[in-house]
């Protein structure tokens, strides 16, 4: 009897003091986080889940600007040494206090061995806890974009990781799963209370979170992955889920027409373009033998002028794309509206340029295209084939699943290909070091320019921001002048929610539930 009275009293107490608008959000995307180990996978949905539980020294706000998170301030004592002051009131979800040694441990963990984020921060040479709340990071040469890179490095508890046997990220060829890949314990606003991978993951509010709890009213998030687009839309319309950050373009009007739902769209941080191999002496798939037409800038421009991106926007993307004039997007350091303006769509000019280059009748070439990577990727390629045919270029389309497309691309087997590029650091250096540097690991265009290579080097070391920005601008003017890639468009993402759910949209497609409100 006594127990019963106590129970009733507790229940009353809980009901009385729980927040007025305590809410649950059911969230869906096509896949799930691959692992809860925050350093084991450098992949979008995996970061999306980890970001709710784990935090970094610095982070990006809703508008993608860099903000302090676990650190309150930082300074460089010399060009190669950074000192971060840690927030003092931060507790992990198990109640232990965050110490500088946890940060030292986490960055070292992210830097070594089986970590998949080590390439992001490979300029770091040493990390040292100076005292309980100060951390010193040394880099190889000056690194002006260290903060941009640290955004992706989540801080774990040293004692928790060591106790559970995961001092390092999960190995590829291990025979056992590690504790940290199926459990999570961070400092963030939510903690995981149930994990059934690919079926259901439940996050609950971390009452001891250091941040401002009144920014959101979410008590519980349920992540329910739904692979099939049509099913996911049906689940949203029938009320089985509240929110998806993967809304298929063809269903946006349907969701908008529902009085109970809304769709918000924003330019995504990803640009789609075609690459042309200008490096080889003879193209593999062309009927032109003995020389490579792409070496001639006129040919590249002829391809450019033949593509009507406004038509593709209207007919294929249903209005959800921004035609692009450069291969990076607004928000990236080095982007300008001026450079992003497309050259004219002009088939006649195209034909003239081809004739000037010595191909009045055009030529034949194969376009390699993925069919499950970017929004409407295959349809865009099909449209491009038609547009290029009008100026006399016979394009054979070879569209394949991403696992084969990227394998062929990496293997240097493609003459003409589609590629998309996101920039997690929001800095042009990321575009240059992979796509435009002579030895960039994704530079399959064969573009080589000594001046550009030199400028890429200075982008990494120049700490005077004005000088650095001038370098970036100079590099872009060289690239725009040579046009080694054909920019197509910037992708637009759409988030579908119930009308009463407000989650600020972010260009990297990553929701932050600590800013979400359900009315």
């Amino acid at each position, binding site marked *: 009897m006594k127990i019963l009275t106590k129970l009733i009293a507790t229940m009353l107490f809980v009901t009385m003091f729980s927040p007025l608008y305590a809410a649950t959000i059911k969230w869906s995307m096509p*896949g799930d986080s*691959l*692992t809860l180990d925050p350093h*084991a*996978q*450098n*992949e979008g949905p995996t970061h999306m889940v980890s970001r709710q539980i784990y935090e970094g020294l610095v982070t990006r706000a809703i508008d993608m600007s860099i903000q302090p998170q676990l650190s309150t301030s930082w300074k460089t004592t010399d060009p190669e040494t950074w000192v971060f002051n840690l927030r003092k009131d931060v507790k992990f979800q198990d109640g232990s206090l965050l110490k500088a040694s946890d940060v030292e441990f986490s960055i070292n963990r992210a830097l070594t061995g089986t970590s*998949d*984020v080590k*390439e*992001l921060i490979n300029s770091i040479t040493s990390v040292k806890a100076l005292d309980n709340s100060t951390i010193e990071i040394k880099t190889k040469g000056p690194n002006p974009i260290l903060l941009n890179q640290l955004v992706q490095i989540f801080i774990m508890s040293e004692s928790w990781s060591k106790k559970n046997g995961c001092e390092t990220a*999960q190995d*590829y*060829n*291990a*025979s*056992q*799963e590690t504790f940290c*890949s*199926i459990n999570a314990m961070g400092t963030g606003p939510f903690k995981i209370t149930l994990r*059934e*991978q*690919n*079926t*259901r993951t439940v996050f609950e509010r971390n009452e001891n979170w250091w941040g401002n709890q009144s920014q959101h009213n979410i008590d519980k998030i349920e992540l*329910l*992955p*739904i*692979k*099939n687009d*049509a*099913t*996911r839309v*049906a*689940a949203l*319309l*029938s*009320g*089985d889920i509240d929110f998806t950050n993967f809304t298929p373009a063809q269903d946006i009007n349907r969701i908008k027409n529902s009085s109970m739902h809304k769709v918000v769209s924003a330019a995504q941080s990803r640009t789609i373009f075609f690459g042309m191999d200008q490096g080889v002496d003879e193209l593999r798939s062309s009927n032109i033998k003995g020389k490579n037409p792409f070496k001639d800038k006129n040919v590249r421009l002829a391809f450019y002028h033949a593509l009507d991106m406004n038509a593709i926007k209207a007919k294929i993307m249903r209005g959800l794309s921004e035609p692009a004039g450069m291969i990076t997007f607004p928000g990236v350091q080095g982007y300008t509206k001026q450079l992003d303006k497309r050259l004219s769509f002009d088939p006649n000019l195209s034909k003239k340029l081809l004739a000037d280059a010595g191909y009045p009748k055009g030529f034949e070439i194969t376009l390699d295209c993925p069919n*499950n990577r970017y929004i409407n990727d295959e349809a865009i390629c099909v449209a491009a084939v038609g547009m290029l045919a009008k100026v006399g270029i016979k394009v054979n389309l070879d569209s394949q*699943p*991403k*696992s*084969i*497309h*990227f*394998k062929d691309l*990496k293997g240097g087997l493609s003459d003409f290909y589609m590629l998309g590029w996101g920039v997690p650091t929001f800095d042009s250096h990321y575009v240059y070091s*992979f796509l435009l540097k002579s030895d960039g*690991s*994704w530079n399959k265009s064969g573009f080589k320019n000594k001046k550009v290579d030199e400028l890429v080097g200075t982008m990494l070391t120049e700490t005077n921001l004005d000088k650095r920005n001038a370098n970036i601008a100079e590099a872009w003017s060289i690239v725009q002048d040579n046009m080694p890639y054909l920019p197509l468009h910037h992708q637009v993402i759409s988030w579908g929610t119930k009308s009463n759910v407000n989650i600020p949209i972010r260009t990297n497609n990553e929701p932050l539930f600590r800013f979400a409100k359900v009315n």
Partner: protein
Amino acid sequence: MFNYFLKRLLQSILVMLIVGFVSFSLFNFVGDPVNNMVGQEASEETREEIREKLGLNDPVYTQFFKFVVNASNGEFGLSYELRRPVSLLISERLPATLELVLVSALIAIFFGVLFGVYTAINRDGFVSNFILITSLFGVSLPTFVIGILFIYLFSVILGILPSFGRGEVVNFGFWSTGFLTISGIKALILPSITLSLFQMTYIIRLVRAEMIEILQTDYIKFARARGINNKVINNRHALKNGLIPVITITGINIGTLIAFSIITETVFQWPGMGLLFINAVQFVDVPIMSAYLIMVAFLFVMINFIVDIAYYFIDPRIRLKEEEAIK
């Protein structure tokens, strides 16, 4: 007897090995798993290191040999995508698929036999023709279209059934069941009907054809002449004999149901093995793909093996042949 048994067993093992080898050779055309495993920043060296670690640079036969040795020890390795043991992943997902297949098979058999008998007895009736015409949709419409139509009708428009998932499940040790909760049973309705439609159509036509044939045989005519009532003739004399081929074929088709469940599971986000397999194909998750294919092959080989053995006991001709061979 022993000889026959041994011969069948060896044949089964050979079939398994061939299936395994063929699927292994095909994996080379699915793409490069390493590109999916690492971020776009990963350097060539890192990629190469992983390839080396996973043994992807070895020739197909070496990879296959390693796989056979490990698989015979029940060891299927770690999933590339999920970094969890494949045996664990499959055992977690097996209950969902088996429950779905079981319910679908029961629906297909129950309604298949019911409608089959009905249409055989009442030929050219309005209801019979209606059943036969509707059942044509069952074979001609692809499963995913039927599934999506069901979801739109029952979840979006009527709002009475869940659009995806398995509902609440109850765990008994390694087995998770959806039979014991209301949401679990509700979640089972649409996918199991979707999955059963093809088999149901098949059984309707089979039962109908068998029944029509049997109803014209002499012993039925004699039964009628004896004045036995129609109900008894149809249900006891005709149906019982008509069911023999149905049972054989349905047994074999359980394997097909498991294979068909790939599509149904994708449409309904049913957390079973089919969904696991589809994800694995897109990721080029070789350990999961090979384990799944071997498992399905094992299933079919087992069914055939049991059928062969059963024939041995049922069909005296096989036994006689064996005995002669020994002499």
